[in-house]
């Protein structure tokens, strides 16, 4: 027992002296639990986080009293984060670039249509929807219908608006020569009753139905809807974006992200292996600059990443997967920039650890958490609030954005420039840091 205890104490001491290993044994699991607890708390509404909010923009082209009321009702329904935009074209662009889940365009004439919704066709609203946010589309449609009922309930509290509508219907009945006399008389009686109910009655006795009992879900209306929501996908740079060709358009960048995890892990550990196996010592005494070791490793990592990404792209372009392409040169540049960024990630991660064990655990663990934060596992739609900002720090996020942008999202070179620059920055910083660390590695083992 004494020997067992002595061994245990010795191993604990060794662990604590290897700071990287200690970090990934003690601190990292704690961070992992906290970070993902926060993500899922927000995603699934635990602990007061509520349901994840859908990021939308509302463009009111009607600018009428009812259209403004509709927009306000939509916001009051909850569940939406409304972002200000200039107009329909910006909505289009923001949705296409994945910055908004949807853009709601209230067309001219919406207010007038809303007044006559009960007696004629409901007014239409156009929604430009990100095809990758299909799960949120249904929620948004429900919220929009609910807001429509709220506005409609408000209309019935206004005798002037209802009176106008009844007058319009009465005029239509009068001008309809084909209507039989009996029907005309019955309609007249009905409209008189409606006039009494909504005109004087509404003012004296309150609305026929209010927001409290009917607004929000449309139950009992037998298919009636106060607004007609038509959803479409944003326009692509080179033509119609349409919906997702297949779910593989979403999973292809995620697959690429996991391939990058494997690539970076493999080369990162092999760089550490050079040191632990002693081959670094042999290379260091060769008549070459010591840096060539890390340059060679970086080049190999870059080539491997490019090949892996290109092969994946080729596979996912097959008809069975149906991932659409953008301009070939944009895809090539995106793949190149992603590979460059992850060479930097590899160099930075592999040179931080001071022991083989620390590197083994550390490289894998950091990549795993960066990949998950970057949307390689949990879709980015689950990241809301400040967590959405946290994802900006993950190179995987930018890789996924660049791959989506250069393929099925059909981004222009100008739109891709942002992700490319971020990826380039990550790569350059990682390489500078990695080289700085590598030059301080003790070779003598």
């Amino acid at each position, binding site marked *: 027992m004494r020997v067992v205890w002595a061994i245990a104490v010795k191993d604990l001491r060794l662990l604590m002296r290897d700071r990287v290993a200690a970090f990934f044994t003690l601190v990292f699991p704690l961070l992992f639990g906290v970070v993902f607890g926060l993500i899922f708390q927000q995603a699934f509404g635990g602990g007061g986080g509520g349901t994840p909010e859908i990021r939308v923009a509302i463009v009111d082209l009607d600018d009428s009293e009812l259209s403004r009321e509709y927009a306000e009702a939509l916001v009051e329904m909850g569940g939406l984060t409304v972002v200000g935009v200039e107009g329909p074209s910006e909505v289009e662009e923001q949705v296409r670039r994945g910055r908004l889940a949807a853009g709601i365009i209230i067309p001219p004439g919406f207010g007038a249509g809303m007044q006559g919704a009960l007696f004629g066709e409901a007014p239409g609203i156009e929604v430009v929807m990100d095809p990758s946010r299909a799960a949120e589309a249904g929620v948004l449609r429900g919220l929009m219908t609910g807001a429509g009922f709220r506005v409609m309930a408000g209309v019935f509290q206004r005798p002037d608006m209802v009176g106008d509508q009844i007058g319009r219907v009465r005029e239509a009945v009068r001008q309809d020569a084909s209507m039989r006399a009996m029907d005309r008389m019955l309609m007249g009686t009905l409209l008189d009753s409606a006039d009494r109910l909504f005109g004087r009655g509404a003012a004296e006795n309150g609305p026929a139905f209010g927001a409290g009992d009917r607004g929000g879900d449309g139950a009992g209306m037998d298919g009636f809807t106060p607004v007609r929501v038509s959803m479409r996908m944003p326009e692509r740079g080179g033509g119609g974006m349409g919906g997702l060709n297949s779910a593989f358009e979403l999973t292809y960048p995620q697959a690429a992200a996991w391939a990058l995890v494997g690539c970076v892990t493999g080369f990162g550990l092999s760089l550490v292996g050079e040191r632990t*196996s*002693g*081959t670094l*010592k*042999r*290379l*260091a*005494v*060769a*008549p*070459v600059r010591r840096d060539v070791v890390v340059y060679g490793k970086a080049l190999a990592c870059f080539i491997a990443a490019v090949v892996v990404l290109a092969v994946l792209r080729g596979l996912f372009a097959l008809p069975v997967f149906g991932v659409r392409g953008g301009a070939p040169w944009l895809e090539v540049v995106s793949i190149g920039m992603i590979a460059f960024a992850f060479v930097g990630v590899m160099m930075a991660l592999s040179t931080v650890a001071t022991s083989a064990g620390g590197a083994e655990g550390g490289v894998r663990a950091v990549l795993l958490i960066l990949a998950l934060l970057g949307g390689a596992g949990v879709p980015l739609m689950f990241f809301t609030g400040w967590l959405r900002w946290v994802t900006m720090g993950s190179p995987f996020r930018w890789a996924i954005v660049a791959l989506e942008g250069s393929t099925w999202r059909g981004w222009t070179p100008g739109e891709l420039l942002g992700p490319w620059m971020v990826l380039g920055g990550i790569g350059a910083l990682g390489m500078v840091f990695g080289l700085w660390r590598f030059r301080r590695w*003790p*070779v*003598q*083992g």
Partner: protein
Amino acid sequence: MLSLRGIVKRYGKVTAVDGLSLELRRGEVFGLLGPNGAGKTTTLSIAVGLIGPDAGEAVLIAADGSEIGRATEAKVRARIGVCPQGDALYENLTARENLVFFATVHGMPKAERRARADELLEMVGLHERADHKVGGYSGGMRRRLNLAASLVHRPELVLLDEPTAGVDPHSRSAIYQIVDELRVGGTTVVYTTHSMDEAQRLCDRVAIIDHGRVLAVDTVDGLIDRHGGHAVVTVTRSDGDVRTETEQPLAVLAGVDLQSPDVLGVRIDRPDLESVFLSLTGRSLRD
């Protein structure tokens, strides 16, 4: 060939090498003999420029006595081969691939690499396993390949850091043979070991090192003559051992009545490097 001048290396409060100076002659096999932690590996690392000394310098000397340069310079490193203590090899490469790779790193022309690799594989007795991955090699085979990898660029000076540590007798014998061949070929060899047998078997001259200092440098015979003391004749009798330290052990032996039933046995212990170390440090090399 190699001049180590007043080398000092400290790690925190520990002084690993303490003012060490040595002059290596061209073509000799020079032994660095000392216990673990004596500073042998640190000295080698400084000699090849892997680590910088806190004081002193390591300079490579040409045959005409002129200085070629310090080990931090590429032109000097091109003339030096290092066989580290561990197996500095790529396990997932074959033996030939390893050698060709290291030949490439040393700037050997492509046309010569494979031939040189094959030559070395023949030399270390691994030609039949040349295309097998190193990961499947035994410890002895790895050590031989490790040695071959340090010779791939035909260095003038080879530093072997305990090349036989933990190897089987067959591989040890093969390594001894390679060192002998290097000596014959005119290559200067620095051989660190804590085995007296190896030092006596292989080295033209030996430096005894302890606590980072050179205690003595000479040929093995010279060290024994100067520091080994006398031979010890031990006569085992029924009532105990009688030890006699003498310059003339045979003369002492002649005075013993070997026919007497009282004499159970006789042994002559000649002085060796262990005696030298004991004499110089007051403790055994194996302590």
